[in-house]
């Protein structure tokens, strides 16, 4: 609900009244980092606002986006993460193959593999998505590595993600409470990692906590995605519930909020702060420039 705040104006007219909306999202947008905000003294305000929203909507299912929402990332842009991950894979492969490819070779193989997987997997209802297994198979083939190396790739991927993610303390606590009251919690992701891989990462980060969620849905498994809007209807059908029974929380405006609401779900925007986005943009530019100076132009794959 919009709350009026005070404002000043000239004497000819009455003072205008200013209203702001969506207090949770506004606070998240304005903070320095979400990690700091959600671990600090104002985390309680965020939690209270979410509780209010749940109380007013009374959903039966609470749904969270995974990456950058339920699990918080640091400010390394995506392409830089792929390159770091490639370094990990290269180091591990050195232990098992005669001549391990370099990190930059692995990065190129991965980038081509992602494109290949995305384009060659059978489309479902007009949606396309890649899968990490296929990405790895392409990279392994392109680099002429033995089939056994695929396990090394996947283990390194999961280890790297685990080391670079933290659990969102506010949302995790909310999930536990919601389930304890009889509600269902689902995690929904547009990602090339399937539910098995996401589940492994969550287990590794859980420190023994087992009651966060009931089910994971990933576009890597279903092909249909949040960003197309179709995954929401699919989930509602799968759980045999009306769309209005769902409340989804996510950082992506289009995929987590606009599309969810168009599908009849309730949705709360949990955005990345402006400061964090700026930091990621800066890191991405620096990354591209560094590799350009080494003779490799990665600008066509530069992603936040």
């Amino acid at each position: 609900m919009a709350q009026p705040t005070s404002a000043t104006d000239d004497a000819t007219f009455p003072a205008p009244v200013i209203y702001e909306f969506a207090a949770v999202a506004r606070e998240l947008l304005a903070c320095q980092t979400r990690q700091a905000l959600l671990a600090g003294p104002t985390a309680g305000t965020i939690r209270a606002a979410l509780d209010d929203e749940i109380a007013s909507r009374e959903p039966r299912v609470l749904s969270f986006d995974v990456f950058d929402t339920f699990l918080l990332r640091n400010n390394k842009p995506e392409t830089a993460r792929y390159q770091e991950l490639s370094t990990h894979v290269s180091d591990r492969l050195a232990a098992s193959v005669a001549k391990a490819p370099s990190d930059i070779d692995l990065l190129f193989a991965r980038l081509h593999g992602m494109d290949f997987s995305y384009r060659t997997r059978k489309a479902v209802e007009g949606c396309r998505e890649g899968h990490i297994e296929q990405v790895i198979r392409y990279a392994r083939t392109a680099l002429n590595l033995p089939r056994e190396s695929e396990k090394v790739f996947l283990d390194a991927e999961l280890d790297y993600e685990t080391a670079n993610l933290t659990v969102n303390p506010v949302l995790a606590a909310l999930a536990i409470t919601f389930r304890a009251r009889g509600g269902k919690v689902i995690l929904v992701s547009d990602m090339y990692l399937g539910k098995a891989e996401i589940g492994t990462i969550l287990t590794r980060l859980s420190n023994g906590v087992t009651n966060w969620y009931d089910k994971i849905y990933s576009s890597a498994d279903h092909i249909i995605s949040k960003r197309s809007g179709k995954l929401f209807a699919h989930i509602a059908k799968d759980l045999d519930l009306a769309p209005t029974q769902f409340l989804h929380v996510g950082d992506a405006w289009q995929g987590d909020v606009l599309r969810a609401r168009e599908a009849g779900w309730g949705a709360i925007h949990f955005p990345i702060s402006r400061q964090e986005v700026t930091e990621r943009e800066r890191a991405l530019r620096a990354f591209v420039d560094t590799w350009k100076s080494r003779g490799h132009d990665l600008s066509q794959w530069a992603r936040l």
Partner: protein
Amino acid sequence: MSDLNAGYTFGRNDLGPAVAGYLSRLHAQILVFEQEHGARALFVSRAGVRIRRALDVFVRATKLPPPATGDFFWISRLVVARGVWNRKPEAAIDVLSKEYRHINLAEFVRGMFRFAPSGARLNPVDPSLIGNGADLGRFLSSGSKIAEVVQTLFRHQSMLFEGYIKQLLGSSGTALLVDTGWQATAQTLLAKAFPEYEWWGAYFGRSGFPNSDRSEWGRAFGLVFEADTFDPARPETSPILNRHLIEYLFEPKGDSIQWLAQEERGGQIIAPGAPGILADAPTRESDPMFVGVLDYLASLPEGIQLADLRAAEAAAWSRIARVLVHPTKDDLAAFAGVTRSADFGRDARVPLLPKPEPRFEGDTPDRRIQDSLWPCGQAAVEYPPEIAKALQKRLAGDLKAASVRPPERAARRRPAVAIITRTMDRPMFLERALKSVAAQTFQDYVHVVVNDGGDNDPVRATIERTNCDQARIRLVDAVKNRGMEAASNLAIRNADSDYVIIHDDDDSWEPEFLRKTVAFLDGKQGKHYGGVITKSTYVSEEVTPKGIVIHSKAPYNGWVENVHLMEMAIANFFPPIAFLFRRDVYDKLGGYNEQYPVLGDWDFNLRFLVDADIAVIHEPLANYHHRDRGDTTTFGNSVIAGRAKHLEFSSIVRNNLVRSLVQRGHAAAATLAGVGLYFEDQRNTLRAADNRMTQLGQRIAASASSSAWTDHYWVAFQHLLKSVVENDAATLEKIRATALRSQAGLLARVGMAAPAQGHVRPADLDRAAAALLKDQFGRDSTTLEATAIPPDFDEVYYLRQNPDVAGAIADGSLASGYDHYIRYGRREGRNRPVKQ
């Protein structure tokens, strides 16, 4: 350097690394398709022969595992077009009629049988052969003997083709076609005709035109590039400017495959033309470029170093792009003697770079450049370096990079854009405006909704229930009505941002509006501008009990190319919804003038232009909605509903501007603003005169169509003359005999009324004239040899206006522009130019 050495060096040093990068991706693609999809790689002739050869050299040098499959697919576009005949005749006709559109049907039929084991005897006077390739569908369904023979050939070839596919693919349901490119035409045809298989394509490049069939492009990989136009930021797209370079590189000696046959023993389906292509044996003398590439590939080290390959590839493409976009005369040495072959059953080779000499009367360097297979190269042939370079820049198109990196800028401390929406008691429009903003792909904004004295509760409720990003919305309730401009100023002051834009509650945007306008002002190009507009669309709509109904859309002031202060002094010519501007310019101007109940945006724009420039993005990204039908008073725009006020304030705004400019010492600007009204009047007068001239011209053109009569009689006369000169007694006798017959009967046969009723122009002039010629000479105008050009026909102008015709003359398909006009141009509605 000799031409041979130049070609070899170019191949080894530049094309070699580019091809190596391509082959590394092709190799991976084939292996993964084989393993993941059980696919069979098919190397499509003719280019597939050389691609396979290059891949074999690459694999041997790097010691990578070879593909498990890799048969040659002996086809051409002609073979595929005929091959799909039994399943998709309409698709076959579509491909063939496009390719043969300028070729007469007799020539088409000859082409179909040129390499067939047994051709039919062709009766050139068969009436079903009237027309050209564009008439192919009609011809094939005409029921004529010739059409039946052609159909029989098609059916047989199609049956063999189907067997050939089964033979090649065996139990595999998936084919990966390997070829140079570009539009995946064969792949698309195969996918449509043989949907029981999955057809994928691995091409050197994938590129098309606005009317290209892209239905299968999701399965067509361009391994070097996927783009329709050259992007200077991506030099690997430079082959788009000269596709023939890659096609020539991979084109083996040997004719295009024309037909399939079945072996008597064993029943294997073969392509009789295949041995000729397989015999391709390039040498440094015969194919220096390709041999240079092979030598480079053979020198690659063992193992796969993707990053090194890519770095060498990227550097090579920069060099190649320079040669393709700005070739010098020295660069052209590598391309000396390069010719390209035709397809579709035609014998022709066309030089890549014709000599700089006239090909026909009226030929010019500019015409040769236009017709050339490589315009940038031909420019270097025709002109000295300094002229050639400027011309090459223009030929390569707009050289601003399409793929631009996000601009370098300091981190923003405030939102990029303040979007200002003024509203008062119009929740239906407000909801649409909120959704328009929410759909933007650019999200760094604050959306200030200012309620100018209306009921605030519905505004709050609308914001809360609409699917929009409420976190970015600030509602300013003015409490009491202040007027449009005061409301704008109030809203702008209640937000901080780098840029500002007025998004009225009844207008809307395309989703990319903010991303493109902000990127422009953030970037190097926008640095010197205070603001930017996009093109706008006028949307005519009506409010009905069922909601807002859109009736039509059209460009709004589509003529806007730039923003002149002089033009603004005449009238405001862009709406607020299209105009993003810098906040600091707004601050300097002191904001909107709150005195004006209407035209406040015009006043703002005029004062803006005295201080800063406004750029134009030539894409229609803003929608300017007008309630110009039904009840225009309740929901009308001020321009529609408030016309009287507009008239009143147009003089006040202009007068005030002149006064304030004079007071500030801007006498020149004041003069411009003052005389703007005068220029508006002059322009309206000129436009009215121009309209009358156009109408007059149309009437003249209509009466000039009677020249069609004279063309028919000119042709008839030419042939009569020819019969006399050649002493063609049989034809002359026929004319005499026909002339002696009843004149009325003859005239009736060609559709004219009897002389007693006066001669009436027949309804179907072409048919009448054709019948006349056939009756008199036993043949029709479309199969006659070339006719002399009449003295009033401006041949040079016709060829200049119709470059496709000049191209057809150059390759020998037509004798002259007049020849084309008589056979096809008149029917196609092309203008008949009259010599002055």
